[in-house]
């Protein structure tokens, strides 16, 4: 239902060990953040885009769409870095080469980092990510909450869409004023339904022996030695780029 999640479920890389994907993605991201020159971020952009598109089978069109998501933040974030502001003797806004270069570098670095993140989220479905939390000793309560929240997000989203549809069919969201009204009806009705839903879900779990803790069979993914080798090689190469 959610675009990113949907793509991840359909990617062939979903069968790869999620921990290896996470380590690969984070390690590259850290390298990018430590970089001071352009070579390393650009190298990571090329590498990660290539892997995500060829191995992860994310279409160029979809990858491009997702890349556009942070575009607005990026623009709004680098403009203040690029321009200088003088406040004495009235407001004066000016552009310096120094600031301009800093802004461009910042944009390239952010782009490289976010592509590392995209590699992970576009190839790893949420179910697998949630399993990693256990590996990294996340407290049981938080894990369980996240596990339940994920499922409930899907249920509530579906309900929201159904209500939205019913409202559209009766002329909702026609004007701005009417949109605001329709939306507040929608949200409050969604909220008022929560209590009953929590009771029902609780019963559904208790009927199968729920005693306060959710214990499930782990999903198994064997880490591949070849992938480890690949990760180590790329990190060594990136480290080399970082040094020069």
């Amino acid at each position: 239902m959610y675009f990113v999640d949907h793509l991840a479920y359909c990617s062939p890389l979903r069968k790869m060990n999620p921990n290896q994907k996470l380590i690969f993605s984070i390690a590259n991201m850290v390298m990018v953040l430590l970089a001071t020159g352009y070579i390393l971020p650009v190298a990571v952009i090329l590498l990660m885009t290539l892997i995500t598109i060829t191995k992860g089978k994310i279409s160029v069109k979809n990858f491009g769409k997702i890349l556009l998501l942070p575009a607005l933040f990026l623009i709004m974030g680098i403009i203040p870095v690029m321009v200088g502001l003088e406040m004495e003797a009235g407001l004066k806004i000016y552009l310096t080469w120094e600031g301009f270069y800093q802004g461009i570098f910042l944009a390239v670095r952010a782009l490289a980092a976010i592509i590392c993140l995209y590699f992970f989220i576009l190839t790893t479905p949420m179910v697998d990510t949630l399993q990693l939390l256990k590996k990294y000793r996340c407290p049981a309560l938080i894990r369980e909450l996240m596990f339940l929240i994920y499922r409930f997000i899907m249920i509530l989203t579906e309900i929201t869409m159904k209500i939205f549809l019913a409202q559209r069919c009766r002329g909702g969201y026609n004007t701005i004023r009417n949109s605001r009204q329709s939306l507040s009806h929608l949200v409050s009705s969604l909220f008022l339904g929560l209590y009953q839903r929590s009771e029902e879900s609780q019963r559904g779990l208790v009927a199968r022996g729920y005693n306060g803790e959710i214990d499930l069979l782990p999903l198994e993914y064997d880490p591949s030695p070849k992938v480890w080798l690949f990760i180590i090689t790329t990190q060594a190469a990136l480290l080399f780029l970082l040094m020069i």
Partner: protein
Amino acid sequence: MEQQWILHLKNISYNYPDGTLALDNLHVKIPKGQRIVFLGPNGSGKSTTFLHMNGVLKPQKGEVYYEGQKLSHKESKDLWRKVGIIFQDADTQLFSTSVYQEISFGPKNLGLSNEEVKKKVVEAMEATDVSKLQHKPVHFLSGGEKKRVSIADILAMDTEIILLDEPTISLDPKHATELMEILEELHKKGKTLIISTHDVNFAYSWGDYFYIMKEGKVLLEGSYQEVFKQQTLLKEANLEVPWILEIYYDLLEKGKIKAPYPPRNKQELLKYL
């Protein structure tokens, strides 16, 4: 000249965002004032067809005609004023807190004056017998009450055409009978009623004209005499033969019955026997 069609979907095709074909060159003509049934298994495209009839979905290919006039994209956006949908799941159709407020949502969006809105809501509540519930919060209603409110929602808009998506599901026999009475009233008033269902027994004795759908296409259409004798096609659409017909044909074969026309309902069958 031909019969007057109130709504006409011409060569409609529709793909879901994930690429699956939902409607495949669909051709549907709705005769005014009649009882139309769309029969087909889950996922055969009935709901998608309904959403096109109501203008919420815009056809990616093909045209929509209302009372003989071709609608532009902009005009089809306003189809909800003429065509109301009652959804299968009343729970997710209702979104207001009080019953009164819920029913007034549609008429308000039609741009009626407060006076008129009130009148419409009161009428709709009376027709569906929910006047007593008007100040109750929607969340506390029982399943059958919610269904009635969801019908009042649409009646209050006084649309020419009323679409009902799987209306009998989850209704117990008593509530189903009440629903049938409401529909009978609407039919008498000249409204065009369109129902989607996979309950062949109910459909057979209720409908005037039938569309059998499968995989986004119309497999078969026609009056009850025409449609229900095509038993192989019905099976192909994963539908059963109505039991009344099954018994009739069996008796006909055995020569135990001599009625010229197949019986329409239990009463007729019993008369023949």
